């Protein structure tokens, strides 16, 4: 039965509760929750792919010239006798970055959680455009599979780095990669369309479909982060889509947009790529910051400290994020005067990030902190993102960047931000919303073991890379032994590789835990974390259409430990005077 009722903003909203066929319900679904879960399974697979590629490239760096265990199964063109070839190494580096950025971290943050959370946290039945939403997922899946297929092309997958600097990426003769390189472009172009459809949907939904009482300044910070992220995606990703189509034309039909012959300019690619690429960095961190705000408030049983400044910090980061792209190009041959202005904007963007870190700390201050697994990952995020943020100051300073640019210092920095930052927040989010998604808990002890392993091994892998960068070890090199200044780095690289193997194993342990919990986890109640946002008033898992009746919102999103209420949380659709009248609380406190 489908009925139409007036939505909170007067827009008719369809409520669908009729039984659906398996295919409509789970495969070609338009339900935002199912789409979010589809994204989750797909991106976990791509995360595994990206991790496997990382382990292989780490093996070469840790044990150069030795046969990769099981590597003899790889074709002669990649690893004859199991020994990784330089061209295959370049593909590994390129595809590790590509899979992690485009097919793991970004869709884990946005594809999974924007889809899953936006309609429930703002109190509506579904996305504004459910069919576009479905198209967004299927385009994403196709683009990811095309990227994966490029490994099977003659000449292998792209080896020009995830940043695809032209002319290397535009000249097959220079890279030795032919169809794999074209597939890279096709895949990313399709990915761009998928992302665009998602962004339009999230923005429209947040603007139009908030429940009665859900004013802008009562939105959960997750929604603020995802909303601003969607705007970044809307404005930045099409630039990449256009750029990769131009790059593909250079490769295939003889244009010279990025080639120095016939009026082209290699630096044009870098400007276009980073005009996308730097907002992309914030696409990859803002939603993570949203999760962390939510989880730290919940784990500390306290309202988020400085909610408004958190919102303004998100906006400031997003705005400044568009005018810092040149800091990737200080040594590119760009006019040094431009380097100066990009340095200033880059240093300024550190300020809103610092505000967020201090606000998270202040949220913990005076709290009653519960050490749940999501809370551990959120605190881990704060500790590791801080390191990534601080190491960013070194490379923001143009003179220091002369030395550390293109070294392992940068590799350490990006992994502290994207793994220690984004991925830790994603793990926190998975543990936190798993009960809502699947109606079951992930075992807390097992989750804490995962946290401890990941935290320790992550630091063993990535912290020493700062030191490698200080030694001057360049990124993306296959063999350090060719350089006199790198004579002392092999032991460290070998240690890092062992730790990386352990980190990968802890990832596999997480995957097993995840799938085991899907079937065997303890049943979760409606609100296992005693949380305050609207999704926690729905059954776990919620039904198609979420709400029988749209809820009314009475106050902000993080009313923990409200003095007028006995329990230490208050859902956004609960009124303090109805939940427990003030005089009763006074009496009970008097007794205690």
């Amino acid at each position: 039965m489908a009925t139409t009722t007036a939505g909170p903003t007067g827009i008719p909203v369809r409520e669908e509760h009729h039984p659906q066929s398996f295919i409509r319900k789970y495969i070609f679904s338009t339900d935002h929750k199912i789409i979010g879960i589809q994204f989750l399974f797909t991106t976990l697979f791509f995360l595994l792919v990206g991790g496997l590629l990382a382990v292989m490239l780490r093996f070469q760096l840790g044990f150069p010239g030795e046969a990769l265990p099981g590597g003899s199964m790889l074709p002669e063109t990649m690893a004859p006798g199991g020994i990784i070839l330089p061209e295959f190494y370049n593909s590994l580096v390129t595809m590790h970055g590509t899979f992690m950025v485009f097919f793991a971290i970004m869709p884990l943050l946005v594809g999974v959680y924007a889809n899953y959370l936006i309609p429930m946290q703002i109190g509506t039945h579904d996305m504004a455009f459910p069919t576009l939403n479905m198209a967004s997922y299927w385009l994403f899946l196709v683009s990811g599979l095309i990227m994966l297929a490029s490994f099977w092309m003659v000449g292998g997958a792209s080896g020009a780095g995830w940043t695809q600097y032209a002319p290397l990426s535009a000249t097959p003769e220079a890279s030795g990669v032919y169809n794999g390189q074209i597939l890279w472009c096709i895949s990313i172009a399709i990915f761009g369309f998928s992302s665009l459809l998602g962004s339009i949907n999230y923005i429209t939904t947040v603007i139009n479909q908030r429940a009665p009482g859900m004013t802008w300044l009562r939105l959960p910070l997750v929604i603020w982060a995802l909303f601003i992220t969607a705007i970044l995606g809307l404005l930045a990703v099409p630039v990449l889509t256009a750029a990769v189509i131009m790059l593909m034309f250079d490769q295939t039909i003889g244009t010279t947009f990025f080639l120095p012959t016939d009026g082209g300019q290699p630096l044009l690619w870098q400007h276009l790529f980073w005009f996308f690429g730097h907002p992309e960095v914030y696409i990859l961190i803002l939603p993570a910051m949203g999760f962390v705000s939510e989880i730290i408030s919940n784990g500390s049983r306290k309202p988020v400290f400085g909610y408004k400044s958190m919102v303004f910090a998100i906006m400031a980061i997003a705005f400044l994020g568009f005018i810092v792209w040149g800091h990737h190009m200080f040594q590119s041959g760009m006019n040094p005067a431009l380097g100066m202005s990009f340095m200033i904007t880059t240093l300024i963007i550190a300020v809103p990030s610092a505000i967020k870190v201090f606000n998270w700390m202040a949220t913990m201050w005076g709290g009653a902190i519960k050490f749940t697994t999501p809370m551990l990952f959120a605190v881990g995020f704060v500790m590791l993102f801080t390191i990534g943020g601080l190491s960013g100051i070194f490379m923001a300073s143009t003179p220091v960047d002369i030395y550390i640019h293109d070294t392992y210092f940068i590799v350490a920095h990006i992994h502290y931000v994207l793994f220690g930052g984004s991925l830790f927040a994603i793990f926190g989010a998975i543990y936190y919303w798993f009960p809502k998604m699947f109606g079951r808990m992930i075992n807390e002890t097992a989750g804490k073991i995962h946290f401890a392993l990941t935290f320790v091994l992550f630091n063993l892998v990535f912290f020493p890379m700062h030191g490698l960068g200080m030694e001057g070890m360049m990124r993306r090199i296959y063999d350090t032994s060719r350089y006199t200044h790198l004579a002392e780095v092999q032991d460290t690289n070998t240690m890092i590789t062992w730790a990386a193997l352990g980190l990968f194993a802890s990832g596999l342990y997480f995957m097993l835990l995840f799938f085991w919990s899907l079937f065997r986890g303890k049943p979760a109640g409606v609100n296992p974390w005693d949380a305050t946002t609207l999704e926690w008033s729905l059954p776990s898992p919620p039904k198609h259409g979420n709400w029988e009746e749209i809820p009314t919102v009475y106050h902000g999103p993080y009313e923990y430990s409200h003095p007028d209420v006995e329990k230490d949380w208050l859902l956004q659709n609960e009124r303090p005077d109805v939940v427990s009248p003030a005089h009763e609380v006074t009496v009970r406190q008097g007794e205690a």
Partner: protein
Amino acid sequence: MDWSLPLNISTQGVQIDNLFWLIFWLTAIAFVLVEVGVLWFLWRYRAREGHRARYTHGHLGAEIVWTAVPALTMIFLGIYSGRIWAEIRSPDSFPEDALTIDVTAKQFEWNVTYPGADRELGNDDDFTIRNRLEFPANEPIVVRLHSEDVIHSFFIPELRVKQDAVPGMAIPIWFEATEAGEYQIACAELCGNGHYSMRASVIIHEPDAYERWYDEQTGAAQTAAAD
């Protein structure tokens, strides 16, 4: 690996290293403050029986302080870094009448072109040496970077010099070595399958030794041209 920067042998490197360590100490303070703070709060404010979290939504004064302090620090670092950047890279900073050498990168080698006997680049008596850069210490050197195919990056760690070589552009950089020695140019930008071994030797001479080497070379170049 010993958590230090390699020995510096350039005039610019002194400033770069000082700035590196200044940022190191500033970030170290912030690092200790945040990490110790987080761990302390975790312990101090752990959930305990009968203890309820403080109900507060923020404090304007505190937020202004932790906005202003990082902002002022960043502005200071920006101005300080900007001055050093200008001394190294602004067009005005380039020394006049310096020895100028053309370095042309291509997959996977560095070709170094020296001016011939007339000491001017760009005419017939220039001579080119593959994968070897020689120049005198205690004298500013200008290197003009070119590339024939893809982007490479000219990196000499001990001189604290790094600059991309971009096809279609001629990018000048300058530096001054403070002592003689033998080092390497490394390629720092992924440039294809042989990227990992794209290196060249750097030989820095004492000034008089350089003159002897140069005279030998120009003599040799003239002989070669005469043949």
